[in-house]
């Protein structure tokens, strides 16, 4: 146990000590299988509270204290979005399409202006929920042709983020399953996290819309649009 890393978050440690103590105290009066199990659980709770390590969690593979991955600026506990879609094309074709800078700009155009830099990085401009602009350069961190592309913002942005797109074969000739993961380190730490929480499903909708745009562009060569849509309000609708 001494080589074990901390896998229990701070708040959970405090609660654990209290709960563990309460669980053990009455069980020590009488010996039985049930009481012994309860006492062991209580011991685990006290142990994780005091030392930040839970033998039970390490057996089950849980970790509520994880911080940054090595070399990453993003807290592992930052809000992560995952959406998926099935597209009637091969993984290789989809990978190629996504890697094309013009196509990527189309896919993301509903929420970001994405432009390539001459140094190989990509510049992102995003309008935030309070109309503020967020900008960053991102660089590929993984590029596995036909299966996975990952990117992460370079240091210096107020909205550190990373994302990845994964391509897998879909069964029965349905093409490919595409998974888009995006993770943002909210500005202002905990306050920012609550802002992200308040936004609710908006980031999920943005990621979902990106995948739908990707699919429509690949399968039909165009996007369904309400641009120049006639109405009594004038043109160019967006609901």
């Amino acid at each position: 146990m001494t080589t074990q890393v901390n896998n229990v978050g701070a708040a959970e440690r405090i609660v654990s000590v209290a709960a563990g103590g309460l669980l053990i105290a009455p069980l020590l009066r009488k010996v039985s299988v049930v009481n012994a199990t309860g006492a062991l659980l209580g011991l685990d709770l006290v142990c994780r509270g005091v030392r930040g390590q839970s033998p039970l969690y390490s057996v089950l593979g849980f970790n509520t204290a994880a911080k940054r991955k090595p070399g990453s600026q993003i807290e592992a506990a930052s809000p992560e979005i995952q959406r998926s879609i099935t597209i009637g094309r091969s993984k290789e074709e989809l990978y190629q399409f996504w890697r094309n800078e013009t196509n990527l700009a189309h896919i993301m155009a509903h929420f970001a202006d994405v432009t390539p830099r001459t140094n190989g990085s990509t510049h992102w401009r995003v309008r935030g929920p309070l109309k503020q602009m967020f900008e960053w350069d991102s660089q590929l961190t993984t590029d596995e042709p036909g299966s996975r592309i990952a990117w992460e913002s370079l240091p210096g942005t107020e909205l550190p983020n990373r994302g990845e797109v994964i391509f897998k074969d879909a069964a029965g000739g349905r093409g490919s399953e595409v998974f888009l993961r995006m993770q943002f380190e909210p500005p202002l730490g905990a306050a920012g996290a609550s802002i992200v929480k308040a936004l609710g499903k908006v980031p999920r909708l943005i990621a979902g819309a990106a995948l739908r745009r990707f699919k429509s562009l690949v399968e039909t060569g165009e996007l369904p649009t309400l641009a120049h849509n006639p109405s009594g309000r004038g043109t160019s609708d967006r609901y």
Partner: protein
Amino acid sequence: MRALCWNGVNDLRVETVPDPVIVNPDDVILRVTMSTTCGSDLHFIDGYIPSMRAGDVIGHEFMGEVVETGRDVKKIKKGDRVVVPSFICCGQCWYCQHDLWSLCDNTNPNAEMQSALLGYPTAGIYGYTHAFGGFAGAHAQYVRVPHADVDCFVVPEGLRDEQVVFLSDAAPTGYMGADFCNIHPGDTVAVWGCGGVGLMAQKSAYLLGAERVIAIDRYPERLRAARENVGAVTINYEEVDSVLEALQDMTGGRGPDSCIDAVGMEAHGTGLQYKYDRLKQALRMETDRGDALREAIMAVRKGGTLSILGVYGVMDKFPIGVIMNKGLTVRTAQQHGQKYVPRLLQHTVKGELDASFLATHRMSLEESAQGYEVFKNKAEDCLRVVFLPQAA
């Protein structure tokens, strides 16, 4: 151009709006020569379906002449006279390629919004709420038609507009409903509702080989249309003690092999539950609409097919136990029009189908708001009003 706009509950007005333009390379612009009212429009006119916006151009059942084509349009040519199904379909996705056209993955710009309501998005529709895409409708002088090579069907020579316009929605919807019934020789098909879709479902059941079609409604002129234009046997449910017993008596106690619901009801969210219950008490028509589906479920024979074409929202008191214990097959969909329009055009050319009897009223576009009043109130024995957007 001039167009019929929804401005709020029961507030339709003909207004001047910008002309549509080609946006995507597969688009065409259609000069609308005829469009028609649909019962499903009444749901949002009455305010029961959400996500309309003031100023929306309505209308989803139409035909016209191609006046402009996008650069990637290959089959459809300028000058073609075409009929267009109400659902916009890409022709490329898994659903289109499996003839499940109204479930197209690639034509709803508001797919994420609609997924919140249905779990997954449907195809976009012309002039039918923003959840269903927000596309401008066709009660207008011009309309933009995306994916024209997939969605435009050239009309054979010699057919009048009134014979063709209903092939945009009422006829393929009704035909699909009858197709769902998997009709065998000797089958009896009962159809609730004698509006445009119900009458087309009745006609289609005969085209697909039904021995007998029984039509159920309460409006004498609609029942007459079912008898005279379709050849159906009719039941006026206000004149019998029990529709169930009447159907049993007509089928030697077996019950109809298939029942088609072409009635539908106003859509309600769960939050409107009490209002719905009040409505059921206050408005007899609403109660009857809710009853039609339950009645069809009771009446269909054991192991039979229930085919639902009516538009529903969230329905309470749905007797799933009756469906389960009787081993029913339930088939339902918004229309997969692109699958059925070619064969309906063939039936029309051969003289086996003439849907023009639905067009009881002809009006100019300028009169279209009044046209919806007549249609909604079933005044003047109205079945359907057709609009002529190019008429002065």
